[in-house]
């Protein structure tokens, strides 16, 4: 019996054939092997040439800025099939799976990008190959950051977002539209994990305080007490997840009349304290909450033995007009103090780096997970590097005690850095490139503490940053997605269930060496 094909199948086959022929005929036609050289590297945006790349990063899509009527890019490496991308506009969108495969099989090798451009006359020319290194070390796959308008002292639409660095997926962790326009900020994770997470929220209809999430369970707490009316600000988890160190900052903003960055933040006073989660109590010591000094930016050492922080002499009182006369003289030093969480015993205060002696101000210390390196910001003055155009990132080798400027720093403010869990990647918020809008940059740090050329976090649309009028603040690398997010997280913030409305100051110690509870509370008000 003869089988007759159904008419639809025939029609479908004809249509497919026509489509294939049309595609072949209408395709721009790639460059031939012996294309003349342009004699220079192609200008591309963002600048993704000469990098060290994580093997698990999403494709680095870019736009070729050379004039032409057609473009072709070949991405190749020693192993695996090269990727060819054609474009008529110069916008290069690299297929994600093939990109990932290519990077995966070439870990530790080089990645070459050949750029061809067809001129108006129809002749192709080839630009110099751009070569990057594919690192063997993966970057933590998620980045949580805050998105906000470039105003700082007020905000409209603000949210914490979680970006999957292996793709372009972005989820809302929490958005202030779900909080009747309140503020959310300073999300903090413990050792790049999400089993312990914290974020702060501000009024709003839902009060001001912090939300602690441990193993998926949220607790709403107010780190304020009778002696401390201001809410907690910069926070760090103790590695045991049993305590938090936090600062209380009486922050004010002022403005410059003739400086490219008009805004500036200043602490009129600040102190540190420790929130012990087992007992829901706050402890402190004059060494970290002295009225003669301003203490801020706490950070536990990875072994949990020392609390590092920045400290400057109080050159003004809280009641002085803002800005105080000597605002440009304030220089923060890097300090540390031992604290035994089990016994509540404080050690002696030590100066790690003397800001005054260097004539520079230190802020935002962050340890590499292995505890070998400490990266911090340094600027001429101030505790708020992000507003200081001269702020750069510095790396201190804790074995030798030496420090030097990281080469990934830009000529604008670089701050808000975060280490990956393997200590090989650093993400930081940089105004490099435009001077106003923070963008998240990624740099590799090798075993000797040398950083590679940084690159801006890739986006599906290579023109994304060109028109994005919001800031990327506080980028934090994490190993897994945030467990509680979106409306579920917002609901926790909106709830009126506080674990404690006001924290008791139960164990402040008067002097170094004293045990918790031996002295009357010395922790003073931050404002």
């Amino acid at each position: 019996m003869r089988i007759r094909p159904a008419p639809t199948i025939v029609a479908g086959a004809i249509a497919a054939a026509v489509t294939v022929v049309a595609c072949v005929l209408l395709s721009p036609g790639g460059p031939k092997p012996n294309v003349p050289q342009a004699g220079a590297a192609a200008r591309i945006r963002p600048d993704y040439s000469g990098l060290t790349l994580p093997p698990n990063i999403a494709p680095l899509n870019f736009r070729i800025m050379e004039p032409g009527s057609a473009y072709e890019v070949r991405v190749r490496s020693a192993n695996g099939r090269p990727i060819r991308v054609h474009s008529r506009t110069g916008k290069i969108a690299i297929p994600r799976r093939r990109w990932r495969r290519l990077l995966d099989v070439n870990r530790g090798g080089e990645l070459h990008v050949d750029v061809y451009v067809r001129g108006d006359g129809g002749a192709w020319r080839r630009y110099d190959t751009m070569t990057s290194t594919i690192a063997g070390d993966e970057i933590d796959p998620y980045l949580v950051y805050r998105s906000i308008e470039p105003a700082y002292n007020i905000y409209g639409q603000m949210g914490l977002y979680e970006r999957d660095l292996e793709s372009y997926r972005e989820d809302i962790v929490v958005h202030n539209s779900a909080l009747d326009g309140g503020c959310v900020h300073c999300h903090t994770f413990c050792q790049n994990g999400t089993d312990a997470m914290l974020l702060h929220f501000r009024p709003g209809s839902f009060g001001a305080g912090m939300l602690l999430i441990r193993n998926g369970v949220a607790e709403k707490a107010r780190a304020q007490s009778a002696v401390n009316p201001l809410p907690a600000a910069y926070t760090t988890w103790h590695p045991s997840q049993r305590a938090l160190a936090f600062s209380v900052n009486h922050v004010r903003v002022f403005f410059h009349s003739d400086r490219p960055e008009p805004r500036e933040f200043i602490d009129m006073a600040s102190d540190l304290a420790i929130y012990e989660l087992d007992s829901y109590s706050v402890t402190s010591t004059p060494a970290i909450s002295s009225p003669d000094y301003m203490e801020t930016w706490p950070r536990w050492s990875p072994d949990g033995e020392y609390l590092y922080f920045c400290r400057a002499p109080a050159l003004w009182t809280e009641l002085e007009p803002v800005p105080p006369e000597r605002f440009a003289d304030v220089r923060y030093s890097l300090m540390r103090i031992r604290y035994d969480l089990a016994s509540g015993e404080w050690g002696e205060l030590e100066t790690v780096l003397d800001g005054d002696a260097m004539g520079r101000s230190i802020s935002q210390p962050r340890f590499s997970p292995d505890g070998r390196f400490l990266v911090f910001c340094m600027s001429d003055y101030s505790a708020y590097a992000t507003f200081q155009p001269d702020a750069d990132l510095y790396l201190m080798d804790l074995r030798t005690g030496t420090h030097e400027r990281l080469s990934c720093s830009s000529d604008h403010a670089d701050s808000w850095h975060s280490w990956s869990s393997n200590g090989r990647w650093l993400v930081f918020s940089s105004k490099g490139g435009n001077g106003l809008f923070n963008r998240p940059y990624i740099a590799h740090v090798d075993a000797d503490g040398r950083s590679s050329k940084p690159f801006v976090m890739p986006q599906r649309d290579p023109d994304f940053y060109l028109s994005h009028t919001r800031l990327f603040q506080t980028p934090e690398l994490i190993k897994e997605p945030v467990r509680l997010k979106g409306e579920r997280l917002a609901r926790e913030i909106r709830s009126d269930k506080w674990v404690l409305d006001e924290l008791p100051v139960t164990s402040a110690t008067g002097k170094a060496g004293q045990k918790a509870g031996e002295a009357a509370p010395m922790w003073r008000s931050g404002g």
Partner: protein
Amino acid sequence: MTPDAAASVAARRSRVPVLQILGLLLFYLYVWLRVDPGLLFYWTRYGLPGFTLGLRHARPFLARPGGAIEYVSAFLFQLYAFSWAGALIMALVAAGICACTHALFRAFGGRCSALIALVPGVLLLVLHGRYAYVLPNALAVLTALAAACAYVRLRRLRAPQRLATFAGLLAATYYLACGAALLYAALCALAELLVRGRRSLSLAMAILGGGLPAPAAIVFNIRFRDAYLRLLPFHPATDERASAALAGLYGFLLLGVCLGYVLRAREAGADRARPVRKAARAMAWVRRSAPLRAVAAAVLVGAATLTVLAGFDSRLNSYLVIGRAARRGEWEEVVRVGRGVDWRPDAFVAALNLNRALCHSGRLLEDMFSFPQSRSGLLMSPVAMVGVAGSSAGALMTFSDILLDLGRVNESEHMALEAFCRVGDRPWVLERLAMMQLAKGQAAAGSIYLHSLAGNPVHGRRARALLRELASDPMLSARAELRQLRAAMPHPDDSTDPTVESLLTQLLQTNPKNRMAFEYLVAYYMLTRQTGKVFAELPRLDDLGYDRIPRHMEEALLIHSAQSGTPLDLGRRSISGETSLRFARFMQVLQEGYQRDPKGTFKALERDFGDTYFFYYQFAPGGGP
């Protein structure tokens, strides 16, 4: 149906809907010529949207119910800049709602007066006259009504099929119009209950419609409140001035279909010669009597007209006209409208614009006291500006305008950024922020704002042109306005919160030719009754090329001279005879009459000298600096 009746129905259907077309035309003309949607576009007010084309920008909208309509509304709102286009959009939306209302009422009641179906249009006119931004809400109502109309037209379907169709339309309506889908569900449930008498189906629809937002809140990861109420009258995102009228619209639609059904049922009862109630009988009689129909129609039209006219906010209209004209640099228009404004103390934004317009047209020191004046209507320190402006983005943006005109770019940026946080990426806010970065030589930051603006399909052309210009000249050195700004910017850097006086004197130190700074400084001294300082500023007139002493300065100098008791050394300049004469007369009337008859004297002085600094100095509230 008899052949005659069928012919009558056919004739009625084929008749051109003259009334509706006339109503639409009147609506359009009123909105275009009286309301002027362009005013809404230029209003710096929270909740009015910017727009950027592209999937990246649309995605957050499309990811939540109601977002699609909000995104479309944001696009359509950009067309409001052209008043005729904005009026057309408003009229078409209103026409759609009225047409759907008519169809629905007929489906419930069998017949519906075309005038009654125009009631939603009247409500919308009132809202437009109050400058409430209701486009997304109106589109949501239109979507719900259109879906309900589609549903009630279904014929010959069994209950399960009807329920399935209802559910499909409900899902689509909910995604597009969020909370307004509740209206759709309610109308469908009522149709099943009242028209078809299917109680269980009606109940199922009510449960489905009322219950859908709950799982949607989980699926879309949004608040329950938003899942239920977004685009409904009392959601926080709805313009609060429109809430009551929108609620009235919803009430009218729901009650209207019920009432239509009740009347039809009673008429049917009357037709079957059952005992008829008086009201139903009267209604039927009115319908049959042509003169009474005409009277009823006239009463309805009259009431609607009165409602629309009474609802028009003419004072707000004047302020918005001033605001738009100031944004466009139409200074004569600002002054013209300013003369007819009913000035109230809360109108300080309009007052700021008026003084700015007087300055730009060279009349600040000649005419400013022809208008009610207060210190807050001229200038404040930046900290005071933020405090006074509160959440008013309009005030912030106006302060930004003035500061930029003066040359205080950083302070202007501060105000504009605060406005940006409150009103979002409105086209002229983005352009302002871009120009300030360009003035400071920060081309890269400026181009980010420009690229953002370039994504606006309606207002991006100028940004695209600027970007092309930037590519060849990153400093835009050919642009005179940027050159002027760069010359005016104060040096050296000062980080203290400047007072009004220091803010202006720093500008004059940097650039003694800054005429606006000079005029504002003198005006500030006059408003704060510091006539001695006005006198001290006299030498600057030579630097700035004044051929004579401005009138109000003359008046201030006369007061200063009278107070100090000595004639002033004015150099080669002199005070005009007319001003001296008016001062003498003012003093005479004041001294002779004020003790005897304070009220009468005040009125006489206000009539004859209300436009002088003498009058302000004597009677305006407030003390010194």
